[in-house]
């Protein structure tokens, strides 16, 4: 009783907090960000695909009143209030998120977000795009320095960041390390910054299981200036922790396919059907006998 009372108090406080939410101010240095690409039918099409997969469940279909009933209400992309945002403001809000609006910087690539913006701008007839400068970081690439034995021994992953064109080390680049799991990418260590020789070291957890042969798919992402991330290394490393996953569909079970039905069930089903129809055919046989007996007379 008491706990539910407290819960109600918290929920109602939360409600007033949400209602009294301050306007979403985007930092000045992010406001002016422009798309590094020219919006085209191509970007709008790709953007629509991302929008339908990622945004539509809350924001609804632009121009239709089918937004999710949340507080604060998700805005209709076709509305004037929504379209007032600058491209940079959109980009900031989508990447960072606030409250119920999730942050997409780890889920979507920078291009995807720009494509979505290019798509929602089709609902604003007055919109004219200003194209920004091309992304200067695109030439940067990374190299895994650690070898297998090194990795296993010390649980470290060393990365070197270089400029692709001249192979010179790049200083001050922010990198993050991820490992692929069943349902997405798991962040492994905190963000690291490359040093004077372009190198940095991640701690690799010693108890992270690999697949059946111990392989782990890892990736290293570089933080872009716009808040998104770009993958510069995506590779398989070998570890000694092998994971033999037990598949629930391997054995006979009620939830499995027909060929994996429980034996007792198949016997019961087939047995009952055979018994019932066996008796039915026996009855038919008796009827034939009655018929024969009458014909003899």
């Amino acid at each position, binding site marked *: 009783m008491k706990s539910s009372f407290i819960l109600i108090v918290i929920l109602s406080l939360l409600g007033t907090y949400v209602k009294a939410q301050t306007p979403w101010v985007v930092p000045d240095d992010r406001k002016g960000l422009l798309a590094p690409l020219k919006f085209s039918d191509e970007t709008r099409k790709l953007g629509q695909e991302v929008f339908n997969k990622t945004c539509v469940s809350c924001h609804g279909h632009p121009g239709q009143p089918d937004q999710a009933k949340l507080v604060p209400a998700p805005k209709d992309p076709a509305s004037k209030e929504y379209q007032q945002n600058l491209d940079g403001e959109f980009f900031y809000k989508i990447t960072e998120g606030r409250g119920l609006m999730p942050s997409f910087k780890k889920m979507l690539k920078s291009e995807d977000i720009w494509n979505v913006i290019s798509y929602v701008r089709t609902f604003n007839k007055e919109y004219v795009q200003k194209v920004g400068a091309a992304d200067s970081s695109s030439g940067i690439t990374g190299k895994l320095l650690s070898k297998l034995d090194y990795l296993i021994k010390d649980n470290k992953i060393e990365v070197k960041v270089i400029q692709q064109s001249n192979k010179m080390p790049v200083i001050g680049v922010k990198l993050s390390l991820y490992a692929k799991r069943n349902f997405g990418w798991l962040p492994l260590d905190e963000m690291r910054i490359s040093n004077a020789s372009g190198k940095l070291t991640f701690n690799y957890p010693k108890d992270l299981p690999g697949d059946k042969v111990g392989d782990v798919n890892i990736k290293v992402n570089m933080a872009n200036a716009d808040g998104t991330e770009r993958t510069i290394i995506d590779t398989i490393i070998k570890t000694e922790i092998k994971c033999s996953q037990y598949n629930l569909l391997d054995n006979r079970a009620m939830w499995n396919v027909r060929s994996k039905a429980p034996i007792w069930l*198949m016997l019961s089903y087939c047995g009952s059907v055979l018994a019932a129809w066996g008796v039915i055919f026996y009855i038919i046989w008796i009827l034939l006998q009655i018929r024969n007996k009458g014909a003899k*007379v």
Partner: protein
Amino acid sequence: MDEKTKSGIIHDILKSVKLNNGFYVWMAFLTVSLVFCLTAYYQQLTTGLGVTGLRDYISWGMYISNFVFFVASSLIGMLISSVLGLTGQKWVTPITRMAEIIAFAFAAVAGLVIVSDMGRPERLLNVFLYGRFQSPILWDVTVVTTYVMISLLLFIVPMVPDLAIAYNNRSDLPKWQRLLYKLLSLNWIGSEEQKALLHKAVRILLILVIPVALAIHTVTSWLFAVTPRAGWNSTIFGPYFVTGAFVTGVASVIIAMYVFRKIYHLQEYIKDIHFDKIGKLLVLVSLVYLYFNINEFLVPGYKMPKHEAVTLHSLFSGGHAIMFWFVQLAGLIIPIFLLLLKKFRKPTPLLIIGLFVFVGAWLKRYLIVIPTQEHPFLPIQNVPESYTFYQPTFTEICITLASFILVLIIVSVLAKVFPLIPIQETIDERNNKTESHEE
């Protein structure tokens, strides 16, 4: 018993088998109505299930509740012929065949009702080709088919001596009808050997039909009860459905008894005592069903588990409340009280009560199937308003009516073409009675 009474019985019962103008008019009416309703099915077949009120969340609507109702009604054959017959209840003799006809008609059409719920009925065969042993759908299809077969046999086999009598006594009938009698009477001459064989066959059938009938409705209940959903997640769904089926079935038989007694002038065979007895039977099965209803609603209603509360409230006091209380009161509780009084067990009052019970039973299936789906555990969101509730469309209602018309056609034809009251049994019973009187 003297020869005159025997021939009198034969004459009385066989009076109705000749097709007359009244029958033709009735059949023409039914056929025209059926054709009209089938145009609705044509529309559904060509356009798809979008013409119905069925949507993503409420995907089982009137068709499935109607299916449950039909399966329920078909159980009556088992109760009357088998349970009461085997326990030596002599009063059921004149209504056993009627009960079997009702059982066969409802069971046979129940299968078609399922097909009407399919958007792609031409894929029905896949149920058998790829059906999983684990799926209650496969069990249901199997057991319905088996039950239809047994009901048909239970209709025909005990009728064999009567068909021989009909063949021998009605030489004025059209050729096809006499041929039908000749074929189905299996060269019956009434020898001791034949009698023994027939007795054995009927006995076996009467015993076999009990587990199969229990299975048919228990499996139907499992279609719901094996899913953990509010209102369906119940361990007593099997007996709850079976006892409910008896209520429906008895009401159907009461209606049939009244109608056939009237149009075939069978007052001498279906007497007030039969109405009195079946009225008492209705009280009995209704009380058992009421007991299960109390269990089914009082226990969850007492606990009001958080996630099931919405469904229960919608029944007790929400959108479905009027229907729910009508079903419980007019379809169950008031009939029980009225039928305890002898004067309400007379034919006409009993017919009216039977009609209420029948309608209540149909609505009851609607209440079992639909409210649960309107309140899934995960909230319904981001769908058009029309997806959040269920409203049957005109097309759907027409197709459902078509299934009832089909049942009426089958019942009318079988009850017309074949002797409706068992002749041989009636004669035997009256013989026994006279003999015991003479002793």
